[in-house]
């Protein structure tokens, strides 16, 4: 089925991992107030599947008997939830006031250029997802960039390549 923007929407759950789905269903089964636990259920679903594709959202909606639009509304509202697959590492660039004043926008452009992706998208190799985020509370280190939980402070555009290569090298030595 296509959505209003002409993008294909997959609503069948046939393509979801059966094992993960049954773990999720068991989790939902154990909750008493199902409707009131939507956010918990979505957390669980995202931790299992890595992201919340449309068919998974629909599955959750039907399991807890809420309209799919409502579930989609919650998923699309909270920045913690993602509807796109995420890379192995999430690069979060702070766009809070202090970081922005210190040139976060230039660093963001460098990141987009070097990774070849737009905001909230995953790189082709599946290694990174790029995200802009709001203040992380480390304004003294502005501009701040995080890769997963590791914080990089006082980042300059010319540092980006070195930081990215660290993770690329790690991946090479681990897997290949």
């Amino acid at each position, binding site marked *: *089925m*296509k*959505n*209003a*923007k002409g*993008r294909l*929407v997959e*609503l069948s759950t046939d393509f979801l991992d059966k094992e993960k789905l049954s773990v999720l269903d068991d989790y939902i089964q154990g909750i008493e107030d199902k409707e009131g636990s939507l956010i918990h259920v979505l957390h669980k679903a995202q931790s299992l599947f890595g992201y919340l594709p*449309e068919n998974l*959202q*629909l599955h959750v*909606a*039907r399991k807890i008997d*809420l*309209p*799919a*639009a*409502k*579930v*989609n*509304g919650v998923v*699309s*509202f909270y*920045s913690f939830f993602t509807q796109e697959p995420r890379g192995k590492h999430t690069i979060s660039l702070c766009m809070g006031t202090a970081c922005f004043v210190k040139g976060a926008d230039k660093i963001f452009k460098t990141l987009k250029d070097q990774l070849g992706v737009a905001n909230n998208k995953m790189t082709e190799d599946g290694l990174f997802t790029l995200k802009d985020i709001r203040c992380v509370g480390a304004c003294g280190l502005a501009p701040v960039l995080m890769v997963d939980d590791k914080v990089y402070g006082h980042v300059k555009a010319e540092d980006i390549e070195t930081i990215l290569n660290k993770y690329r090298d790690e991946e090479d030595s681990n897997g290949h």
Partner: protein
Amino acid sequence: MAIVKAKINGIDVEVASGATILEAARTIGVHIPTLCHLNLEGFGIVNKVASCRACVVEVEGRMALAPSCAEKVTEGMVIKTDSLRAITGRRMAIELLLSNHPQDCLICPKNLECELQALSQEMGVREIKWTGEKMDYPIDRTSASLVKDPNKCIMCRRCETMCNEVQTVGVLSGINRGFDAVVGPAFNLDMEHTACTFCGQCVAVCPTGALTEINDVGKVWRALNDESKHVVVQVAPAIRVAIGELFGMAPGSVTTGQLASSLRRLGFDAIFDTDFAADLTIMEEASELVHRIEHGGKLPMLTSCCPAWVKFFEHQFPDMLDIPSSCKSPQIMMGSMVKTYYAKKTGIDPENVVVVSIMPCLAKKAEAARPELAKDDLNNVDLVLSTREYGAMLHEAGIQFDVLPEGDFDQLLGESTGAAVIFGTTGGVIEAAVRTAYEWLTGEELERVEFTQLRGLEGIRSASVKIKDLEINIGIAHGLGNARKLLEDIRDGRSHYHAIEIMACPGGCIGGGGQPYHHGDMDIIKKRQEAIYAEDRSKVRRKSHENEALKVLYEDFLGAPYGQKAHDLLHTHYTAREKI
């Protein structure tokens, strides 16, 4: 009840504890404009999100202006609604909304009916001071009923309240965040691919042009001007008590005669009354009910005239498709009779007959397009106009509806009884059915035809009607959320009803999604209802089975009510659909 005292613009005011500033101001004749706020009094429908800020006022001792629609009056509160700060604040709220609003008012379908436009005028907005990013969303025209233009949405959430809380359909929700926020279906789906019932109540309350109907006026003009086409029109019961409002007539004016004259002037080849088909529906539906009662069939039986209700149960209760009556709706029955009986009688090839319906409803557009209702590859009904669209057509043609002489419908499919007229209001279909079922089951004449216990505007009503030794329990619901409650009772085995009438819109068809906009004034709906009952009282014949033209139809063409041919032409089946 506790009373709180406050001052508004220097005037003392006393209100019950819990009243809002807006409500308090109204008691002393102080007008505060509102936009997102919606309170459909008497129907229990309230949208109170305080998102638009068009109603802000100054409260002494506070830094920020307060939204008067949501802020409660507290003891000793000093409020100013007419200070420069309050007036400027309200104007700025409108200016900010306009900074991101298309400025195509002149050609917008909501032109002169738009509440944002009216407020802009009321607030004296003469320039839009800010230029910012504009929304750019595709316009959804996928369904036969609705146009959804998110670019004109001001996020008032009225539609969301109607869709979720009132109708419990759950198709519309706020999606995304900040500037990207939009009200729409899950995953940005087309309306056509959702569980939308097309009841049109979102359209009825949308303050702007974000939700409007698919406009078919042009197609009707083309059909009327096509020499090869024989264009037949039908008008639903609820039109005659509402359309006058579009021509400055008082709400509740009964304009049946003007309606017939206006159709004649536009040049329709035959002018029929959906009321005839409503009488026909009663013949079939009452027969079905009597059949179910006498043969131990499935009870309760639910009415099936309302296409939004039909689509609702197909999506929401797909396991209960055997409960509603199999009767097609009056609109479709009329279409079916025009393309068979009328075509045969007049010798006109049904291929060249175009059936146009004028309906108070947007779901009737989608209903006419349902494939299973086509017969021999011919639609029963070809084109459907809402009351508003028909009014627009008359305006285009320069027909002054309010001063038209009274005319008549054409014979054959134009006669109707009082029982048919009341189809236009909640409680009317079942009352009409009872009038006929009573005489059929008892063999006695029914003297007092008015079953007042079935009337009113309560969301769910129930009554018992004694027919001989049988106590018939009747349920009535209007608004799909109320319908849901009755259906859940049936599913759980808690229902004691024999028959249930359901209409999707608050008030029934008089409050339909295609009717002239009520702009939150529900007295209009009440007046339309009074007019419906007045029209019923004015009729000589008030029971469907007394319709003389209908008797001829059965004798000449259909055979027995609920018989083989009637089944073929007047009954349908339902399809289980997904809930999304």
